[in-house]
């Protein structure tokens, strides 16, 4: 084990990073909390401390309720869809053959693209007349489904979600693949020798061993889902009629479009609290997992 050192040397290494981190990450976060108790409106304007008035207002705001509803739909889809597809792909492609390597690379290619670019590409794919989605639907005789996906109130959110999941699935697959490398082959072989079929091996051996990877995937997906803004902004700006307006978009619109900066801060605080719950759960799961494996 390492010896105890005088604090001065580690402090000298930590001073500048901590200074920058506190000044531009921690201080603004705390500051946001403060602004959420003010009536700040307009960039230059003076503002007053108004206590919990913003929160009183926000929980009766119809648009906020709508944003929370959309965020929860988005969140629920995000937890299941890319996780399950990513897990399926990882299990199918975990072998080291050439074809698997190529397939894996192509499935995770979207990870390196900007959400902005993914949004632009998918707007084009969804375009009502010329987009491949509708060309495909017409080709297989589903003419009635060839609709303006992003312009319809009941399909906008889910259409944006599909574009988002296109990227998140590859990321989840990569994390599951890394997790699979920690599943000892002898254990899987032993299960087979004992007469377990693939599904039994999967349920009883592989999935439990994948728990750490699953925790990481769920935490990352959940947080990415809550904070995703760019792709929604590029594709629908939260529309039509706020039907794809999530909390992240609501926070931006209230703060920077309507210039209600105090009110927008309270939306940011709600988003922050939701993330905090996930962070706490995540760290607790991790320490539980460490106890289990140590």
């Amino acid at each position: 084990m390492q010896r105890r050192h005088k604090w001065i040397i580690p402090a000298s290494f930590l001073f500048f990073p901590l200074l920058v981190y506190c000044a531009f990450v921690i201080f603004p976060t705390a500051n946001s909390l403060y602004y959420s108790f003010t009536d700040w409106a307009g960039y230059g304007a003076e503002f007053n401390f108004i206590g919990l008035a913003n929160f009183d207002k926000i929980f009766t705001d119809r648009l906020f309720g709508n944003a929370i509803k959309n965020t929860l739909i988005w969140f629920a889809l995000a937890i299941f869809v890319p996780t399950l597809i990513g897990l399926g792909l990882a299990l199918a492609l975990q072998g080291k053959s050439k074809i698997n390597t190529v397939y894996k690379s192509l499935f995770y290619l979207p990870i390196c693209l900007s959400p902005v670019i993914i949004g632009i590409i998918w707007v084009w794919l969804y375009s009502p007349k010329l987009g491949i989605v509708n060309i495909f639907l017409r080709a297989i005789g589903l003419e009635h489904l060839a609709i303006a996906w992003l312009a319809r109130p009941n399909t906008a959110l889910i259409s944006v979600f599909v574009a988002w999941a296109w990227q998140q699935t590859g990321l989840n697959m990569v994390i599951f693949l890394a997790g699979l490398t920690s599943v000892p082959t002898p254990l899987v072989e032993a299960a087979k020798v004992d007469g377990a079929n693939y599904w039994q091996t999967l349920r009883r051996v592989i999935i439990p061993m994948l728990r750490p990877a699953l925790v990481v995937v769920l935490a990352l997906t959940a947080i990415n889902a809550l904070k995703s803004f760019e792709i929604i902004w590029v594709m629908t700006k939260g529309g039509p009629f706020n039907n794809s307006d999530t909390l992240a978009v609501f926070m931006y619109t209230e703060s920077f479009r309507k210039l209600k900066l105090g009110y927008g801060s309270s939306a940011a605080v709600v988003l922050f609290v939701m993330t905090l719950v996930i962070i706490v759960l995540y760290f607790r799961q991790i320490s539980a997992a460490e106890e289990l494996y140590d």
Partner: protein
Amino acid sequence: MTSAKRKRATALNPTRLAGTALLYFVLTIMLILFMAPVYGVIVTAFKTATEVALQGYWTPPATISIDNFARVMDPEQGNLSLYLGNSVLLTIPASLLSIALGTLAGYGLGKYRFKLDGLLFIFIVAGMFLPPQIALIPVFRLMNAFGLYDTLWAVIIIHTAFGIPICTLVMRNFFQVVPNALREAALIDGANEYGIFFRIMLPLTLPALAVLATLQFTWIWNDFLWPFILTQKADSRTIMLGIVNLTGQYTVDWGGQAAASLIGSLPTLFIFIFFQRYFIKGLTLGAVKG
């Protein structure tokens, strides 16, 4: 039975063979669906508007045209050449600074034991999970107060700060596994703590630095939200803002948009192709051990 023999035996089993064939059939269909958007963007980017009008978007281009690229790069039109330059000026210093600060913090936390070091580590790493939205308004105000609003500096500083958690995490984990004997031997030889850090430890960190360089470059290059909030005029706009702006101007010019998307993705695609190993390693940190 050795595992190689068993593999051969199972591979020859006909039901198993049929299962494998079915699996790859399904995977291939999925892959085609998955890659269709990428294919569409590439073929459309290299087609002229006339050809699109005649052939539609999804056929391969008869002749390869770079008109779309020229149009969106042209300072008189899409002006992406300016935004590309800005993105380089932003991404490189911000990546380097965040990695440098993360290396210092990671070393301080990975190689020394002191009171509350574990808590400090969690305090820094927790920043990785913060949604940027929580800091948006205060950072906007802070940058205005510093007179940095609408400059690349504002975005550089904020990406440096928000990059510290991930860089600290990677470097701390890295330094923890560097044998202490190395440091102790140097101490006995009379080297001081900083000499050890710069001359002995830093050269060892190259693989970890490569992981972080690919990660940080990709995040910062691809980011839209921070420059969107912190910049306004063309001279401080980044490529992602430029591309979004372009889609507003050329609403139905899919050729131009496809070319712009490709241009904006080239640097990260380059990393994806040539440094994939490092990039993946960075993405999967913590997935194995938790």
